[in-house]
């Protein structure tokens, strides 16, 4: 019988190194957001990193140097550590700020180009992202390739002087307001049963001839995601991002970045904060029991999320830890909405503070997508099970 003598933490979420500079930056961002809100620059939005796009707001963040925060200064970045960026994103999310326009570019596309792009690509694109003037969409999912991403059918064929791109991408958030999409496409046939071979990534200018973007209304009736058609789009030679045939490894790295942030659970903080305001003077044991549990769950998740940032800061590749936080984070978002409803029960909607009803309704309608986008709960659990040696 096993003695459990090997027992120990399977996953490490190290303590964030105390950093007064990060806290100073946090305070600066918070002050800016308060001023913006007071001046009518925005009202707090649920699910703000997906559905609240405001290019002018993004440009104001860029002007303050808060985009591309971790990239080298020579590419327009801030040259700061990941925990600084984590502090900034926490503040933006907690405020429900309209950050959707630049979110993908700042979170994953820019860093991806930094890692895999050519010098020319970096110099051309990164400073524009950091200025809040260049937005990106994700080009992974297709009508027949969702969780099974290696099934992508979009094709890039070699032609004189470049590539010809044919196919379609779907669920591409913000493609209608974005400048580029990083497209995963097949450049050569699978090697036997290895479908992960023969894939490559391309930087596609969404203004190029042959690209058409059409919006898809989500359940709430809002267009934030799209279907993007590539009808024989001529791509220049330097549209290739990274290595030809190296697309699978690259897209895996990109997904790790996509999953690593606090947006997977922190967007319900605005809702929880407004709920506590609504309960002021009406707090009782039933309500406190519900809200206290949510506070505890969110605090633990936050610690894990900061642990992921700390791991990044140490130069580790915490993709499994990030998958774990995403899986638990999106599960928490559902529990948080359920809990908030329970805590607010008995308090007529007419007596709710301004904005709470909108926040709750928007959160309810966003819930089904939270545990789908960026990799479903089932895919996340598969990643964790692989680390446990089960697959």
């Amino acid at each position: 019988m096993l003695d459990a003598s090997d027992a120990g933490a399977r996953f490490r979420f190290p303590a964030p190194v105390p950093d007064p500079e990060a806290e100073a930056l946090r305070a600066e961002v918070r002050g800016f957001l308060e001023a913006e809100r007071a001046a009518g620059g925005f009202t707090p939005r649920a699910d703000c990193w997906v559905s609240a796009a405001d290019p002018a707001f993004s440009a104001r963040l860029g002007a303050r140097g808060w985009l591309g925060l971790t990239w080298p200064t020579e590419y327009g970045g801030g040259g700061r550590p990941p925990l600084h960026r984590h502090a900034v994103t926490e503040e933006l999310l907690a405020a429900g700020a309209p950050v959707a326009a630049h979110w993908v570019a700042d979170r994953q596309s820019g860093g991806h180009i930094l890692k895999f792009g050519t010098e020319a690509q970096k110099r051309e694109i990164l400073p524009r992202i950091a200025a809040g003037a260049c937005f990106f969409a994700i080009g992974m999912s297709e009508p027949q390739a969702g969780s099974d991403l290696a099934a992508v059918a979009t094709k890039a064929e070699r032609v004189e002087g470049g590539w010809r791109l044919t196919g379609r991408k779907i669920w591409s958030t913000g493609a209608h307001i974005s400048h580029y999409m990083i497209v995963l496409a097949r450049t050569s046939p699978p090697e036997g049963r290895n479908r992960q071979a023969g894939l490559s990534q391309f930087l596609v200018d969404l203004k190029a001839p042959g690209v058409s973007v059409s919006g898809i209304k989500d359940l709430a009736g809002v267009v934030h995601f799209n279907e993007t058609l590539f009808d024989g789009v001529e791509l220049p030679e330097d549209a290739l991002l990274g290595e030809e045939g190296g697309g699978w490894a690259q897209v895996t790295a990109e997904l790790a970045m996509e999953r690593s942030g606090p947006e997977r659970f922190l967007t319900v903080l605005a809702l929880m904060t407004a709920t506590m305001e609504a309960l002021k003077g009406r707090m009782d044991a039933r309500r406190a029991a519900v809200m206290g549990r949510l506070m505890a769950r969110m605090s633990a998740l936050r610690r894990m999320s900061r642990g992921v940032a700390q791991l990044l800061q140490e130069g580790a590749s915490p993709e499994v830890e990030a998958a774990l936080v995403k899986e638990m984070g999106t599960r928490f978002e559902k529990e948080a909405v359920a809990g908030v409803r329970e805590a607010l029960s008995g308090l007529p909607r007419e007596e709710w503070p301004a904005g709470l009803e909108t926040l709750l309704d928007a959160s309810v309608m966003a819930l089904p997508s939270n545990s789908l986008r960026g990799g479903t709960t089932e895919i996340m659990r598969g990643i964790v099970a692989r680390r446990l040696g089960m697959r």
Partner: protein
Amino acid sequence: MDRMVAETAARVFSGRSEDPAALWAALEETGLTAAATPEAMGGAGFGAEEVWGLMRLSGAHAAPVPFAETLLAARLLAAAGSEPPAGRMTLAAGGTIREGRVTASLKAVPWGAAAERVLLLAEGETGPVLALMEIPDAAATPAPGIGEDAAADLVFDADLPEAAAPAPNWLTPLAFRAELALARAAQMAGAMEASLELTLAHTSVREQFGRPLAKFQAIQHMLAEMAGEAAAAGAAVEAAAESAAAGGPVDWRAAAVAKIRAGEAAERVSAHAHQAHGAIGYTYEYDLRKFSRRLWRWRDEAGDETEWAVALATAADEEGTPLSEWIIGPVQGLGVNV
């Protein structure tokens, strides 16, 4: 936690979950029972992170001795300026001190039937007092309980011991409960890690339908969830222990977070562990029992999830700070911005 300390402790705990006497002797011999005792008092002088890390390890090995209680009692005694004695200790809040006499009637004190002394946080005439009481056989009546922790009801009507000292200022009843809650949360985090390991080992060798259980997606997802829950509890425990890093008390709110999170995780982890094990996990002989029974006991000790949740949300409500400040604020931050 320091790697050498962790390895030494794991070696000491290993293989001794059925032999309390041998385990205790080994713990004393290696100095681990004095881990929380300051160097000036002859101990190892470990910080809060190491101390709670050791408690976590003791949970991961289902230690059949009052190790966590002894460490915590030593920590509190040292904070009150008293030198912790050798031997098994447990601790409880309760009792009154009047004119040099201690009277107390304490229900189901863990290890009450196995420890030599109990550290009481008792109500003195001029404030709370830490009184370290010998436990004569006559004072202890075994109490029912599922925690395999030799719990006993303790009754005292005795002279105040010489070693009694006024409790440090910070040691309010809430702070005392928070310290104990964090000890339980740490032990639970360890017990959940061990449950996960047992379940992993079982599902990778047990075959049904011609393949190991671990190859079934339904089982993989259960274990992934267990791993996440155990990790969340562990992270919350670490954050709370760090809140006491500078030698002061644990931030009660961070301890509350840890206890709530560990309690919630225990529910899922033990349910999944048993489901994946099948009938063998439901036997007395199999090791999983030790972890499950402890988890089910510890989650109710020193405040269950609901009690701490009510305390947390009520405090946030009374303080009036926006909740977002509580969670991510630079100062408030539930003890996580250390």
